C-alpha cells in the first residue's frame, strides 16, 4: 500500500484546525503489522466511526490514540499537543468498552464518582455531578444498585456516564453496543448519538457493524488489513465507495465483470450500459458494481435504458422486501445478480421464481472498479 493518507475534504473539517491527528501511525506486534502508516484528522465535536471487519486494526488504532497500546512509529496530537508517547493517565479522554468494565463491587453512584475523586472536589460537588450524570442517562433511581443488578443496556449507560463525568475532551467508544441484543442496541444507538450532540464532545467509536456506523457517524473511517480504505460521510461512503472492499463491506453490492466500450459506455457480456463518463477512468477489463436496491424492473410497455433480460432463480422473503437471485444469459457470465424488489412491486407484477424479466440499472447508480475481481 502507498502512503495511506486519508483524503479529507469533508464539510465538517473546512477551515477548522483538527482537534486530533494521527500521522503515519504504524503498529507492529512482532512480525505482524496491525496498523500500516495511518494518517487521519478528526475535528472538534465530530462523531467518527472506525469501521471494518475484525482484525482490520480499528481497535488497535483506538488504543494507540488512547495510549493504551502505544504505536511503534508515528505521532498522535490532541488539542495541538503531541501526546504520542504519553501514558493514558496523562492524556485527556474517557473510554467505554464492550464489556462495560464497571467495577462490580462499587455501587452505580461510586462507579460514576470514581474519576471525580482525588481532584480536590468537595464531596457535595461530586454527589451533585453524579446525580446530574445519572439524570442525563436516565437512571437516577438506580444510584445505590450494583452493576450486576442492572441490564446490559443500563450498565453501558452507566459506563458512558462514568466516561464523561470528568468532561474529557475526547470520548472513545470501543464496540460499546456489541454485547447488547438487537432492540436495546438500536435504542442505545440513538441515545448515545443524542448525548454526543448535546455535549458536543469529540467522539470516536469503533464498530464492525455497518448499520451502527451509518446511523451514528458524522464521518466513517473504513479500515481493512491495517490501512484506511476510505474516509467520508455515511452517504458518500455508501454512494461512492472508493474501493471494491468498501463497496462490498458496506451494504450489498453486485460485482459483474465487464469492459470499457467508449467514453460513456460499458459492456457487461453483450449488455451495453450507459454510464457517467467521469466514472470511467480505466480502459479494458473492469468490474461493474451496483447495489441490489438500484436494480429496476421493467413494468408495462415503458422501455427503460440500460436494460437486459434475466431469469428469476430464487426469491428470498426478507420481511419488508424480497432479495431476488437473478441469472442473465446476456451478461455472458455465471455471475448471479442480486436485486431487492419491494413487496408492492412483486404483488403488482406477479413476479415469481422461473420468470424471465427485464431489469435495468440507472446510469448514475453504476460504479466502476478497475480490473476483474
Amino acid at each position, binding site marked *: 500500500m502507498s502512503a495511506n*493518507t486519508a483524503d479529507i475534504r469533508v464539510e465538517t473539517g473546512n477551515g477548522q484546525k483538527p482537534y486530533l*491527528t494521527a*500521522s*503515519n501511525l504504524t503498529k507492529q506486534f512482532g512480525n505482524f503489522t496491525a496498523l500500516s502508516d495511518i*494518517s487521519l*484528522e478528526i475535528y472538534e465535536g465530530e462523531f467518527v466511526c472506525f469501521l471494518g471487519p475484525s482484525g482490520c486494526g480499528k481497535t488497535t488504532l483506538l488504543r494507540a490514540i*488512547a*495510549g*493504551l497500546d*502505544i*504505536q*511503534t*512509529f*508515528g*505521532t498522535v496530537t490532541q488539542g495541538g499537543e503531541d501526546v*504520542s*508517547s*504519553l*501514558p*493514558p*493517565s*496523562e*492524556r485527556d*479522554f*474517557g*473510554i467505554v*468498552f464492550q*464489556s462495560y*468494565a464497571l*467495577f*462490580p*463491587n*462499587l455501587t452505580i453512584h461510586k462507579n460514576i464518582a*470514581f*474519576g471525580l*475523586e*482525588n481532584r480536590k472536589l468537595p464531596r457535595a460537588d461530586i454527589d451533585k455531578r453524579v446525580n446530574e450524570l445519572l439524570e442525563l442517562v436516565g437512571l437516577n433511581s438506580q444510584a445505590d444498585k*450494583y*452493576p*450486576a*443488578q442492572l441490564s446490559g443496556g443500563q450498565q453501558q449507560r452507566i459506563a458512558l456516564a*462514568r*466516561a464523561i*463525568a*470528568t468532561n*474529557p475532551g475526547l470520548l472513545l467508544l470501543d464496540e460499546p453496543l456489541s454485547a447488547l441484543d438487537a432492540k436495546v442496541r438500536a435504542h442505545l444507538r440513538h441515545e448515545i448519538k443524542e448525548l454526543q450532540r448535546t455535549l458536543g464532545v469529540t467522539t470516536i467509536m469503533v464498530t464492525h457493524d455497518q448499520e451502527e456506523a451509518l446511523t451514528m457517524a458524522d464521518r466513517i473511517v473504513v479500515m481493512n488489513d491495517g490501512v484506511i480504505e476510505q474516509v467520508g460521510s455515511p452517504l458518500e461512503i455508501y454512494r461512492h465507495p472508493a474501493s471494491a472492499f468498501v463497496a462490498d463491506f458496506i451494504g450489498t453490492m453486485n460485482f459483474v465483470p465487464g469492459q470499457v466500450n467508449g467514453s460513456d459506455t460499458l459492456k457487461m457480456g453483450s449488455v451495453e450500459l450507459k454510464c457517467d463518463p467521469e466514472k470511467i477512468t480505466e480502459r479494458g477489463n473492469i468490474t461493474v458494481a451496483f447495489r441490489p436496491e438500484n436494480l429496476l424492473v421493467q413494468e408495462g410497455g415503458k422501455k427503460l435504458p440500460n436494460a437486459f433480460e434475466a431469469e428469476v432463480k430464487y426469491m428470498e422473503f426478507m420481511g419488508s422486501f424480497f432479495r431476488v437471485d437473478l441469472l442473465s444469459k446476456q451478461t455472458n457470465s455465471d455471475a448471479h445478480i442480486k436485486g431487492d424488489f419491494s413487496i408492492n412491486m412483486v404483488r403488482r407484477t406477479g413476479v415469481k421464481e422461473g420468470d424471465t424479466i427485464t431489469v435495468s440499472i440507472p446510469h448514475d447508480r453504476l460504479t466502476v472498479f478497475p480490473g476483474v475481481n
Partner: protein
Amino acid sequence: MAEVTNSTPLKVVKPKASRDDWTMRAFMVMIGAYLLIALAFPLYIMLSKSFENKDGVFIGVENYIKYFSTPALFNSIENSVTISIITMVITVTLAFIYAYALTRSCMRFKGFFKIMAMIPILVPSLLPGIGLIYMFGKQGYMKWLLFGETIYGPLGIVIAEVFFTFPHALLIIMTALSISDARLYEAATVLRAPKWKIFWTVTLPSARYGLISAAFVVFTLVITDFGVPKVIGGQYNVLAVDIYKQVIGQQNFSMGAVVSVVLLIPAIFAFFIDRQVQKKQVAQLSARAVPFEPKPDSKFDALMMSYSGFIVLIIVTILATCQFAALVKFWPYNLSLGLQHYNFDLMDGGGWDSYYNSIQMALWTAAVGTTVVFTGAYMVEKGRGFQQGRTLFQFLAMMPMAVPGMVLGLSYIFFFNNPDNPFNFIYGTMAILVVSTVTHFYTVAHLTAMTALKQMDKEFESVSQSLQQPFYKMFLKVTVPVCSPAILEIAIYLFVNAMTTVSAVVFIYSYHTQLASVAVLNMDDAGDIAPAAAMGMMIFYTNAAARLLHAVVSKYMEKKTQAWRQR
C-alpha cells in the same frame, strides 16, 4: 496532510512511563529481589557447594564421583524413583475413581466425602507413617493382614504416601472431570455407543491432561517427601532422607548438596512436563461447553458410595489410630486412657512452645505470604511495559514448585549462615522460617492469585487510567475486594502448609524457634511415638479449626457481597 512534515517517520516511539508505572515496577522489582535472595542465590550457593570439599575448596566433580561410587548412596535414586512411580499409579487410580464418584454419580453425601478426602492435607506427612506403625508395626493391631511382611520399608512408604498424596491428585482430577462437556455425552448416547465405549472415548480422553498432571504432582510430592520415609522407611534409603542423614547425621554438607542436586533433577523434570500439560488443559476448555449432569442409577451410585466410604474409612482409621495411641497409657499393654503423652515439655522437640511457635509462624506466613504473593501477582499481571522484567518475575515465581523443601532448607544454611551475608541476621530467627515457608509454597499461591486476577476485566486498569486515578486506588478499592475469595484461599493454603511442613524448616529452626511439625519428627526419632502422634494430631486439629474458620469467613463474605457477586 500537507502540514505534516515527517522528516524521520521511522523513529520508534518510546512510551513514556507514568508515575504509577514506575511505582508498580518498583514493587515488582522488590518482590523479584525477594525471590532472588530467598531462592535463586541460595540455590546457586548450594550448587557451588556441591563442587567443594568440607573446607570449601573447589574440587570439581569429585563429590559426584564419590556419590556415584557409593552404592549406599546412589541406590537411593532407584528406590526413590520406584516408590514414586508405584505411589503415582496407585494414587491416581484411587483418586480417579473417587473423583468419578464425586462428579459423575448421584451418590449421596458428596459434600461429606469431599471434605473427608481433604483431611490428609491438614496433617504432616509424618503422621500417616506413625498411624501405620500402630496398625501394622511390630505391635500393630492389624499386623496379621501383612502375612509376615514388614511395614518398615517400601510397603509402608507407599501406603503412607498414597494417603498423603491422595487429596492433591483428587483435586486435580476432579477439576478435569468437572469441565467435561455434556454435549459430547449426548452425542455419544444418540449414536448408541455403549457405556464402556463412552468411558474410553469421551471420559478418559477429556480428563487425560488432568490425569497426567495429577500423576506428575504425585510423583514430585513423593520423591521430595521426607516425613513418610523418615518415620516408616526403615533401612530403605531414599533421596530426601539421605540429605537429612548427610547434613544432620554426618555433618557432611557437601555430600548433602550433591544429593540435593540429584533430587532436583527429577523434580525439575516433572515440573516442566506438568507445566506443558497444564497449558494444553487450558486450551482445551471451551466457553460453550455445557456442564455434565449425572443421572441417578441406583446400582452404580451404591457402588460408588461404598467405594468412597471405604476410602474415607481408611483415612479415618489411620487418624483415629494416631489419636487413640496418643491417649492410651502404654500401647499395647495398658489401653486405659490418659493425657500424659501431651506433656510435651517433658520430651525432646521443644515442648508446647514448639506448638505455639508453629501457630505464630503459620500466621506470619499467611499474612506476609499473602500480601507479597498477591501484590507481586498484581504488579506482574496488570503492569504496563517492562516486558523482560515481568517474564523474569514469572520465571522466579514458578521456580519454587520445582525445588524440594529439603533442598531449599539446605541452601538456606549455606546462604544465610554465612557471616558475610548482610542477611545473616535472620539466621536462627522466626523470620527465616517464614521466608523459607513463603518461598517454598510461593508457586501455588502465585498461580491462585494469577487465576483470580486474569478473571478480572482487563479493561478496569484502562478505565482507571483514563480517569486519571492512581493504581493503588483501583487495587485497594476494586481488585482486592473482588479477589477476596482467592486472597483468603491463599492465606489458608499458606497457613495449613506452614503448620505441616517439615522439609522446608528442618534444617533452619533454632533452639528458640522449634516447631510442632519438627517436634513430631524429633519425638518419633527419640522413640516417643505416642507423644509424636499426639503432637501430629494437635496440628491436625489446628488446621481443621483454621479451615473451619476460613469456611465461616468465606460464607460471611459471600453473603455480604452477594448483591454484587450475582450474575
